């Protein structure tokens, strides 16, 4: 018990790592959502090459470990193009966003697939433009369907984010390792980081479940 309290005492030392993790994941999640919308638009564009390249992109991202994607972008591409040193932080954000975009696009696609075709036909019959159709009719319906799963995807993003500690970004995981070196306590700081991750990811999955319960009330299931 005394040991656990000792481990909790290292939490303040980890806070700047936690902030970095939060910033990276928040930024990556927003960029990923923008990317996901672009992927869905590409898939629905009807232009053959756009559809094919969006599909290939999503397949690649689903099959490639995030560790390898990060290593390719941080070590591989700069070596190939002779760029010298690149910012690990930004590479990390971009890699998480590229990965997250593919998974979030699947969520959005699934949500759109659940809407009936009659909605767009009705909207066009009422003289709504394509933009109005999406803004007024479809998006307000897609969001409640997609939101719980999107929150879940942010949870996955945070679970993947320790990959950045492998490319020298001082996130929560790497900060815990540094504190381990300073305190000669191999377990405490890691345990404290684990607790922080648990509450962070746990609260997001809690929000996801809450949204799911909240937003599906009154709907036939």
């Amino acid at each position, binding site marked *: 018990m005394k040991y656990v309290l000792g481990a909790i005492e290292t939490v303040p030392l980890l806070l700047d790592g936690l902030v970095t993790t939060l910033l990276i994941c928040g930024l990556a999640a927003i960029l990923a959502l923008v990317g996901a919308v672009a992927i869905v638009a590409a898939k629905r564009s009807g232009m053959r090459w756009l559809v094919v390249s969006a599909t290939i992109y999503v397949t*690649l991202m689903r*099959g490639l*470990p995030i*560790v390898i994607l990060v*290593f390719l972008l941080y070590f591989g591409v700069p*070596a190939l193009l002779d760029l010298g040193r690149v910012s690990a932080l930004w590479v990390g954000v971009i890699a998480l966003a590229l990965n997250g975009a593919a998974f979030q696009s699947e969520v959005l696609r699934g949500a759109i697939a659940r809407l009936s075709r009659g909605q767009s036909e009705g909207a066009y019959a009422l003289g709504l433009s394509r933009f109005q159709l999406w803004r007024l009719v479809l998006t307000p319906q897609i969001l409640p369907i997609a939101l719980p799963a999107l929150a879940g995807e942010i*949870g996955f993003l945070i679970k993947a984010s320790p990959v950045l500690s492998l490319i020298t970004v001082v996130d929560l995981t790497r900060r*815990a390792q540094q504190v381990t070196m300073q305190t000669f306590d191999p377990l405490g700081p890691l345990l404290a980081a684990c607790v922080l*991750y648990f509450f962070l990811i746990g609260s997001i999955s809690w929000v996801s479940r809450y949204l799911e319960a909240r937003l599906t009330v009154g709907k036939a299931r």
Partner: protein
Amino acid sequence: MTDFVTTYGGTLLQGFLWTIILVSVGFAIGSVFGAILAMMLVSGRRGLAWLARSYVELIRNTPFLIQAMLLFALMGILRIRLEPVLVGLVAVAIYTAAYMAEIIRGGLNSIPDGQREGARALAIGPVLQFRLIIFPQLLPFVLPASVNLLATLCKESAFLAGVSVAELTFSGQVVITQTFLIFEVWAIIGVLYLVLVLSIMALAEFLERRMMWLNPAR
């Protein structure tokens, strides 16, 4: 290129094989514990269910790399000397057990209670009840989901390079320190992972389509 393959191909292939062994054996062991956890979750006994739920939530809500690091630190403190690959295997098993428990629990919950009651009314014993009634309905739900879990494990196992387990990603780091062919090596390793993960995902999709008609829910 031929020089590269003959000199370093072996190292990469070895790493690739270790990844496959690590993931498949860890998955097999973890699945057994996952099944036990699932039974605890649906047992109806408060204490057992709470214990299993805590384990599942703890593993599912923390990053795999942190779990692996904690496991290695714990091994050091307890002075247990194991090959890093074996520790990695244990990490994969610990991770699998939690996710597998949720998959099996979901399957068990999808079977209406009336079937168990009916079986009992027909005096079918628990073993026969599981074999004839529960298991065949569990399979179309659990099999595709667990194959998908296997694909996820292949991807997650790359994190084990961060704790010096000699798997595929780690072997890439080794070859790069010898050749400085940074982009080429990561590209080759990426392709190896893609082949492995996408074929497992294709298998999951095949099983899902194949077993759809067995699923009473649809």
